[in-house]
């Protein structure tokens, strides 16, 4: 009853082109952003910010990047972790070698390096498809893992192979406390989410989706497959690279290649599948789900006073995690985003069932 779009007519195409077409949605999203910017930093505990919200934001960003490639352009990638690593290491190297470069630029340049690498590893996509392509991205994953582990120049000859970042600042403002880092990440996420949404709702996005859905037909319409695929790789790796740099700089502070291992790639893939392939909001849902689930799972038994040893808890977490993935896929193969939209559909029809 409350969620109705009756009476909201779109009088112009500009209105129809809005990201959130229903007034209620628009209000809700603005409110959400306002809360995220104003209320959360004030109210959230340090732990909540550092261990939940910051990882959630950064992983959402990475998921958006990956979703562009997998969800929109249909190119399966298992090398996301490696592309994050490229962003992180590149930004770090720039910072170490040219300390004058401001942090923001460092991170964006990290993203650009990831773009370059992403495009190179995207080239096989011009010939390969599906799982065979996934293998080429796995090659990227393993090769880059190796490179960051074995090429001393990339870690500035750090003996342990792990690198760490110094004190951070954003154009003179310190970036030390949790809320500062949180706001910094939030800024990135909002900006890139809007950019990503813009891309996917215009020609670029339609080209990607066309390639995903049927590449021959796309060619017949005049879409250049090579261009579409490589731009998808480029944009996706850029966003993923930026998120990698944020992950390294804002979340970890110090890292080794293992932080961007294949597990990370799978984790991100899970996020977008659970969240919803080809959906920007879905990326947020997926990230929230994956970040929160382990935390909930470790805390819930304690709430009920069940003492679980950590290893049982971890194994149980795996079991529950795996089962939930399967259950979700069965319930709705298109992810939380689709469940969300079905929910809204029902709400719109409510109180009538169909």
């Amino acid at each position: 009853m409350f969620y109705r779009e009756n009476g909201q007519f779109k009088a112009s195409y500009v209105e129809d082109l809005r990201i959130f077409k229903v007034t209620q949605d628009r209000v809700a999203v603005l409110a959400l952003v306002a809360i995220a910017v104003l209320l959360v930093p004030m109210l959230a505990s340090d732990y909540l910010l550092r261990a939940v919200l910051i990882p959630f934001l950064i992983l959402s960003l990475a998921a958006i990047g990956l979703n562009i490639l997998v969800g929109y352009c249909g190119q399966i990638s298992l090398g996301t972790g490696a592309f994050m690593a490229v962003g992180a290491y590149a930004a770090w190297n720039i910072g170490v070698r040219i300390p004058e470069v401001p942090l923001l630029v460092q991170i964006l340049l990290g993203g650009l390096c990831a773009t370059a690498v992403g495009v190179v590893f995207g080239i096989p996509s011009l010939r390969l498809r599906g799982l065979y392509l996934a293998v080429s991205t796995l090659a990227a994953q393993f090769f880059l893992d190796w490179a960051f582990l074995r090429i001393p120049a990339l870690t500035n000859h750090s003996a342990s192979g792990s690198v760490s970042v110094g004190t951070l600042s954003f154009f003179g403002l310190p970036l030390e406390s949790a809320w500062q880092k949180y706001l910094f990440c939030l800024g990135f996420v909002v900006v890139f989410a809007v950019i990503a949404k813009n891309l996917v709702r215009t020609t670029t996005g339609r080209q990607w989706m066309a390639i995903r859905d049927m590449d021959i037909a796309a060619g017949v319409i005049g879409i250049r497959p090579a261009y579409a695929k490589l731009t998808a790789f480029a944009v996706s790796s850029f966003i993923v690279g930026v998120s990698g740099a944020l992950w390294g700089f804002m979340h970890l502070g110090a890292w080794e290649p293992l932080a961007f291992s294949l597990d990370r790639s799978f984790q991100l893939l899970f996020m977008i599948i659970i969240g919803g392939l080809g959906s920007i909001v879905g990326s947020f849902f997926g990230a929230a789900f994956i970040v929160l689930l382990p935390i909930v799972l470790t805390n819930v038994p304690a709430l009920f006073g069940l003492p679980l040893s950590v290893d049982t808890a971890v194994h149980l977490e795996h079991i529950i995690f795996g089962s939930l993935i399967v259950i979700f896929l069965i319930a709705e193969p298109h992810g939380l985003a689709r469940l969300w939209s079905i929910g809204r559909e029902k709400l719109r029809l409510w109180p009538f069932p169909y």
Partner: protein
Amino acid sequence: MTSMNATEAAATAVPYLAVNNVEVIYNHVILVLKGVSLQVPQGGIVALLGANGAGKSTTLKSISNLLHAERGDVTKGNIEFKGARIDQMTPNELVRRGVIQVMEGRHCFGHLTIEENLLTGAYTRKISRTELRDSLDKVYHYFPRLKTRRSSQAGYTSGGEQQMCAIGRALMAKPEMILLDEPSMGLAPQIVEEIFEIVKDLNGKEGVSFLLAEQNTMVALRYADFGYIMENGRIVMEGEAKELATNEDVKEFYLGLSGEGRKSFRDVKHYRRRKRWLS
């Protein structure tokens, strides 16, 4: 009145296949069939007609239980075959009982050759090599074109060849009841006639019953005994095929015949709004 006759016909015939008041919902939200009931008598050929999106394919798939694969659910009603409920059976059991569907859009196994495609049709039959050979020859006899393409991968054959392959594959199962979804689609006129001749042949000689969803109303009504017309997920009209063929509305909307006979496609000037029997 046609509907009077129809009910009489249905009452007298043995309810061989009976669809009773079926409701189908896709994806938990999209209501597609809104209480469909129909019967196919033993040895009958029944046509299911209707516009695009009326729900013909959905009806057939709810009988053959292929709906699950499309996230569709029969939420109300039931389906009986030879007196037994079949709505909970797996497609495999149905094929064993003799009910098989030829799906719309061919659905050949692209990587298998034409001959392998045909052989998969006999999966449920426990028969000797020679019997299998005979069945295969029978199909090749019906569709000589398939024989020449027998060792090509189905994915590379032409649209019409695939259609023949799909029908031939179903015949390999030696079914008692075939649900044919748009068999004529994409086939050359000659072949269309041939296919319907095959239908008639199987019906006459082997007593196979048919429920066919067809857009080619003209041909369908010529070969069918009985017909149902669907609109928007409901049966809006039913009757003996001959009667339907002479019904004015049917003539106008499904046969393209108006008072003075068939009009050239070039001359049908304005887009006519389709008359709805029910909405």
